[in-house]
């Protein structure tokens, strides 16, 4: 069970959080203008990386804020957490 450093509350147990899948997938501004394939790309396609992955998490049993997290899925090392709207760390 990880300890997650919520950008708003600080370190908390993983059980207070929920994972929300891959991060930085922006909902298209004009869905009606997309082809089925383009829409499907947004709707269904998610990476499942063994290694460093950018993820969305929410502090459900805490501040209820969504934030992003960089996690190595092979060893669960959390490399960074940052607020929604902030740029992902480059390193």
């Amino acid at each position, binding site marked *: 069970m990880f300890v997650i450093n919520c950008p708003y509350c600080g370190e908390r147990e993983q059980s207070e959080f929920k994972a929300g899948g891959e991060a930085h997938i922006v909902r298209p501004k004009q869905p009606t203008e997309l082809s089925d394939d383009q829409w499907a790309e947004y709707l269904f396609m998610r990476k499942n990386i063994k290694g460093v992955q950018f993820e969305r998490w929410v502090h459900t049993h805490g501040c209820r804020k969504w934030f992003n997290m960089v996690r190595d899925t092979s060893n669960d090392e959390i490399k960074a957490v940052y607020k*929604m709207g902030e740029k992902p760390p480059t390193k």
Partner: protein
Amino acid sequence: MTKNLRVKTSKFIDETYKISFKFNGKTYYGFKGDTLASALLANDIHLVGRSFKYHRPRGIMSAGSEEPNAIVQLHNNSSRTEPNVRATEIEIYEGLEATSQNCWPSVNFDIGGINNFLSPILPAGFYYKTFMWPASFWEKYEYFIRKSAGLGKSPTEADPDVYEHKYIHCDVLIIGAGISGIMAAKTSAKNGFKTLLVDEKHYLGGSTIYQNSDHYKINNQVSSSWLEKEINEIKKIENLEIKTRTSVAAFHGYNFLLARENLTDHLPVDQRNNKTRQRLLKIRAKKVITATGSLERPLIFNNNDRPGILLCSAINKYANLFGVACGEKNILFTNNDTAYETAINLFNKGINVEAIIDNREEIDSKLIKDAEKYNIKIYKGYTVVNTSGYKRINKVSIMQLSKDGQKVVGSKTSIACDCLGISGGWTPAVHLFTQSGGKLKFRDEDQVFIPDIYPSDQISIGSCNGDFTLDEILVDLPKTLKKFLNLKITDYENLEVKSSFNKSKRNIWLLPSDKAIGKTKSFVDYQNDATAKDIKLALREGFRSIEHVKRYTTTGMGTDQGKLGNMHALGIISETSNSKMGELGTTTFRPPYTPLTFGTIVGRNVGEYFDVFRKTPIHDWHVQNKAKFENVGQWKRAWYYPKDNESMHDAVQRESKAARDSAGILDASTLGKIDIQGTDASEFLNRVYTNAWSKLAIGKCRYGLMLNEDGMVYDDGVTTRLDENHYIMTTTTGGAATVLGKLEDYLQTEWPELDVYLTSVTDHYATISVCGPNSKKIVSRVIPDLDLSDENFPHMSFKNTKIDKIKCRVMRISFTGEHSYEINIQANYGKSVWEKCMEAGKEFNITPYGTETMHLLRAEKGFIIVGQDTDATVTPIDLQMDWIVSKKKYDFIGKRSLYRSDTIRDDRKQLVGLLTENPDEVLEEGAQIVADINKSPVEMLGHVTSSYYSPNLNKSIALGVVKGGKKMMGQRLIVPMENKKINVIVADPVFLDKENKRLNA
């Protein structure tokens, strides 16, 4: 006549405190400080159990939690009986009753022992191979196999004991209070770290504390005396917490550990009342120091499992710690110096050692020279090839080993004995380290796996790190601790250490015999009766992965998880398949390290505390009025209110009829309520619902359907515009939490520019729904000031009003199709308003109805229930609810998905009404719907989602999803049941009052 094998007094045993206990019905005595195993040995009892497969007599092998054989059933009473308890761990107490397991009628005469003679036809994989044919017989075989499976008997009654969970946060956790652990604890705590030290035993000091020998000295003191002073010191340190009888069960990532603290199992039975039996500690440590020590390896030779065969270190511990001799004629068999240490200790206690058989040819160490002084016959370069004695060893046969150790040469010699100590060297206890995700490396020189890569802030110290000798440990430890804890100095710089132990070892995984391997029984896993022969057979049959060999032969799969023999299994695999140990790896070490009882795992979450449940403010009234309840999510909802022994069916029919004929009342407090405010609230609703919201006037209500981005129906409910920028949304009972979560997600991540605030107010309001033709009259009596005329208060509108000075909101909305009102009032007034409505409705026979009647009434109207009539594959178009999907809105959640190639198919499953040809026949919910029963295979068109007998229509009605159902109106379909076929006609899903006349009745 039993002998007394208690020798010189040990200071760990209180001989003034005699304790009686029962083993297999007979009373024996031991002393305070004894384990069941040491007390039995003192009474010269070795035979305690039978092995799993062959029912071979087995004795005590070890003196710790690694014990494979001496596992017993404890009987305190019928609900407290406990199987598979290690006799080596349980401290004896007044009232202890234990029996042997896996034997019938008794451990001395066990019918199952016949398996031992059948063993040539019971090879590895016997069950897999034998019970495959004919396949249809499996059910018959299974009955017998199940009967013979399992060791002990589980209790048949609920566990009456109390268990609890406790969270502990600390800077440094130290697992194991041997010499390394004690030194680490003192260093950590004295330097200001909040430290927790745990050990599975009831005493501190590990194996050093009872070694009273000149061969091990620290700063010129005998090591045990030196350590005793250290222990006395650490007990005084304030920020050090010490927990004994505490076994770490699991080491998870991020230094999260679970440990079981045993609080009462050692107490006399009459002192346990009202005490917590065990505590599950949930430990989060910033740093972890693992000092779990090492386990002595057995040696693998023919018939190495007889009662009276123990590990050398166990014999040593029984003599030194418990003052018990394991035998009178002892022989030790070893491949390293451990046996000499044991021999010298036994001599000092006045226990005879007849001979030491050492498989090493050339040996030379201080220990050995000293042992020779005691006139012990030492056979160098020899191995044991066989033992005899069915229920107790009485003889060993030895032969000389060839130079390469692959075979035996010369003639066989037999030596009589009543106890054989074996030592195959030491295996670091790396279980917890690997559980945490640590990676091991193989050290070739002494054939051990040791920690290599640490996944978290932790270290392993002492013999669990492969440092086996006292000097190695003490020289390295200060350096290691300084680095790990970032310190400049420790109390242990430049300790003077004397250790006579020489590390030389001749490792032979499977010792050769004069017999062919097929004729030997060299046990690798004692508890599961897996032999070297079985492992070799598995390899011959093509198994290569160690995980497969493990499962096929069941090596390492007992309650002891193969703590003793797993390394030998690996060694034999590696030798037979010519692969390197390091490359072969190990099988996975899984938690728990030693078995946990379920009680400890669940703690206080039993019975009514198993899960939280939510009650509405009106709950007590429902209870008083004998409602039956149904669980909806965590809510307890009134299901129906049976009167005078009414059946559920009769109650629901009565309630349904009353609601339409006169008046019904429903507790709808569980519906999710989300308060939505902000200048962009209308725009937000536009985006989350399929229909348009901008033009909804203040004071009006509207039904909304919410989709997922994939176009599938997610939730529904009525939302009311309370003010310009203020709405109250209702959700389904089960969907309340997830809907709020989803809305927050979109607001925070996709549309942060919107000025919208969401607050869950589900628990803040009680919701009472009064429906039926007389509802207006009833509500007018409850709220006389409110003008209920259709002009002032039409359907789908809302009013702020007061009941006795208490503000409330009243909506005129309907889920039943009847004229109805929903009163929302501050939760704590809910029950009194409900009672007011009951009083006011008395003359109209106002009838409380539960969820079942609510479902029936809405089904008559063809209203869907999300989650019952829909699953995650149904679009609003499939529901024939095209009317609610806005064509004008540019976008809303799920809109684009409604015209994907898949969602516009004509032959999707669509919601339709179903009427049975026989109006009295009620379909089963979930039943399949087909068109042609003779086609093979029969094509499933869909299934029944809701089905009731309608007392208002006097016929059976149902809803269902059917492929291409929209175009099948009037068509006959078939619902095939187990013993009949039911003909149904596809119909309009609205069965009652299609014109909605009743809403304004």
